[in-house]
């Protein structure tokens, strides 16, 4: 039990931070509350990142052993994504207080909700069963619904929250219905049980499995804002408080893709999937191409920067969906076995940092309830608020994939990995991705052009210049450049994260069948035996 608790230290830190914020906030005077909670939240999130790093480095050897009887794990995958979302939360905590004060909606609950959302994400990406995945997803979503509607005197914010809530709860109903069918097929909710049930195709199973794949897949596509389920994105991104928009496009997207990868690889693979005759790679490829193209074309015409970045988030969901193909192609589906290079997690790091820097910079534009975030407002920003202009420039350059930034290497890795699948089977998709990047450069580069080359207007515009907000935009922008110059470390972390999905699934499978052969008994020592096989042995099947 203590061992289990030790494995979820990062999640516990986030949960304790949330509960403490909720309990202690009423006792703080308003001024103290404005100064304290942002720092406290950033500190606790940073502590969660540190806890992930410690577990990653010094964690027990049986790390792949899922804790709490196959419901949660602290595998490399879980730790990587928990650290990523905690990092996003840290930046969001830093960028929020001044924005909220200027928008006249500073309440302590905001920080508690942010912690709860991060906790939900951490649970979701660490899930080893569909039950925990669902609970984590709901904890995250419900906190995010409220955070989107947090500017409760602003009609746009409240309506955006309501819209997201209605659509999101329909999506979770779909996910649940899919989970129910997977449960009916396998008699369990953990990924291992589902995978075991899918090892042997049973007669009459195809219909249920197909339904389950369509329903759960639809729910995930909604969460990552893929076309045709992207309709909510522009409205919600525009209506939400700007730091929350940044949090959504970084952390929500990262956790949704993290659990999607886990679910696809650990849940839905095996001979039964092959007998379904559903070319999962090609279906995902189709959605990816549609998503990136529609997202980029709609982004071209936007005047509001928040709305434009929302469509660009849709386009990036397309790039990432294409990246998932490289991960899920599986020998049992008739494709050659690929080394998991971690294209999707690696891309997500670059994308998350770029979104955080960009939206933190946008948060600083405007005081007293104003949001100066249309293209026209940006004219001459380089003279008025040079740091915000610089951070926004680095952010959009990374989103566009310009070389010295991390975004370039992320895209490069996705291109390389997808091309490697079955000797260039997805070459057309890759060409479409490159063309899309060219199109997207047009609207991304409009932003630096407006900031640095347009003549400054005489209008009186005020900007927030508090140090915490400035650091919130500077840190991710610096990280984008630093990791862009030295991408090797982040790349190896990302590939270790993907390897962990694979190794964790397989060693757990061995452990499970061993336990079954032995006629039950405690799973732990058995799993330890199975793990004496090193991770590198996984590809031998």
């Amino acid at each position, binding site marked *: 039990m203590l061992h289990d608790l030790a494995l979820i230290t990062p999640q516990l830190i986030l949960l304790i931070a949330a509960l403490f914020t909720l309990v202690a906030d009423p006792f703080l005077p308003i001024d103290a509350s404005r100064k304290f909670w942002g720092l406290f939240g950033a500190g606790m999130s940073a502590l969660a990142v540190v806890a992930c790093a410690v577990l990653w480095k010094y964690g027990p050897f049986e790390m792949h052993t899922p804790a709490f009887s196959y419901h949660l794990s602290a595998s490399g995958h879980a730790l990587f994504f928990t650290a990523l979302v905690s990092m996003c939360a840290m930046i969001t905590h830093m960028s929020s207080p001044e924005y909220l004060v200027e928008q006249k909606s500073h309440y302590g609950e905001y920080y508690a909700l942010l912690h709860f959302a991060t906790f939900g994400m951490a649970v979701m990406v660490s899930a080893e069963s569909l039950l925990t995945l669902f609970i984590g997803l709901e904890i995250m979503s419900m906190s995010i619904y409220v955070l989107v509607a947090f500017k*409760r005197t602003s009609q746009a914010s409240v309506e955006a929250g309501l819209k997201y809530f209605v659509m999101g709860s329909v999506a979770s109903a779909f996910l649940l219905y899919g989970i129910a069918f997977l449960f009916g097929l396998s008699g369990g909710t953990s990924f291992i049980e589902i995978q075991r049930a899918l090892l042997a195709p049973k007669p009459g199973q195809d219909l249920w499995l197909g339904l389950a794949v369509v329903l759960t897949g639809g729910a995930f596509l909604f969460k990552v804002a893929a076309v045709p389920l992207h309709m909510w994105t522009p409205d919600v991104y525009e209506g939400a408080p700007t730091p929350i928009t940044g949090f959504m496009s970084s952390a929500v997207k990262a956790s949704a893709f993290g659990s999607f990868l886990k679910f696809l690889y650990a849940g839905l693979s095996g001979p039964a999937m092959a007998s379904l005759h559903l070319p999962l790679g090609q279906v995902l490829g189709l959605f990816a191409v549609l998503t990136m193209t529609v997202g980029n074309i709609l982004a071209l015409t936007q005047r509001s920067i928040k709305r434009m970045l929302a469509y660009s988030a849709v386009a990036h969901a397309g790039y990432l969906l294409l990246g998932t193909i490289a991960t899920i192609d599986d020998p049992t589906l008739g494709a050659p076995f690929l080394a998991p290079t971690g294209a999707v997690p690696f891309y997500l790091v670059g994308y998350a940092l770029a979104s955080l820097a960009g939206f933190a910079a946008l948060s600083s534009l405007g005081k007293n309830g104003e949001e100066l975030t249309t293209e026209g407002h940006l004219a001459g920003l380089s003279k008025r608020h040079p740091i915000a202009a610089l951070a926004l420039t680095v952010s959009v350059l990374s989103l566009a994939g310009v070389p010295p930034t991390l975004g370039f290497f992320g895209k490069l890795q996705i291109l390389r990995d997808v091309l490697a699948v079955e000797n260039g089977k997805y070459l057309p998709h890759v060409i479409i991705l490159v063309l899309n990047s060219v199109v997207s450069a047009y609207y991304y580069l409009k932003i630096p052009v407006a900031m640095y080359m347009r003549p400054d207007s005489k209008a009186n515009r005020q900007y927030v210049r508090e140090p915490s907000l400035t650091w919130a935009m500077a840190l991710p922008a610096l990280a984008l450049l630093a990791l862009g110059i030295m991408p090797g470390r982040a790349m190896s972390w990302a590939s270790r994260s993907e390897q962990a999905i694979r190794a964790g699934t397989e060693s757990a499978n061995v452990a499970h069948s061993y336990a079954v052969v032995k006629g039950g008994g405690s799973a732990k020592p058995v799993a330890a035996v199975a793990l004496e096989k090193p991770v590198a042995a996984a590809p031998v099947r």
Partner: protein
Amino acid sequence: MTSIPLGHILLLAALLFGIGLAGVLTRRNILVMLMSVEVMMNAVNLTLVGFSRYNGWTEGHVLAFFIIAVAAAEAAVGLAMVLAVFRLKQTTYVDELRLLKR
């Protein structure tokens, strides 16, 4: 004991799910839309409990309890949001929320 066959339970659940979905898509009152989502959730519960009962599993019942709890929390959040909208607009009909419909 004559028991209801699993197929009937699943069919009923599928019908409920469809009714709920149709409700969300066609009704314009947010409160009714929330009720429809609850119907969808309960259809899922019925499916889970049906599978569990038919096969003698227990995990489905547990999952159904979790879903009931989550649905209750979701209803609370949803109603709070409806209240926030009502304070600003004095309406619960989505047709009258035009700000975000472009």
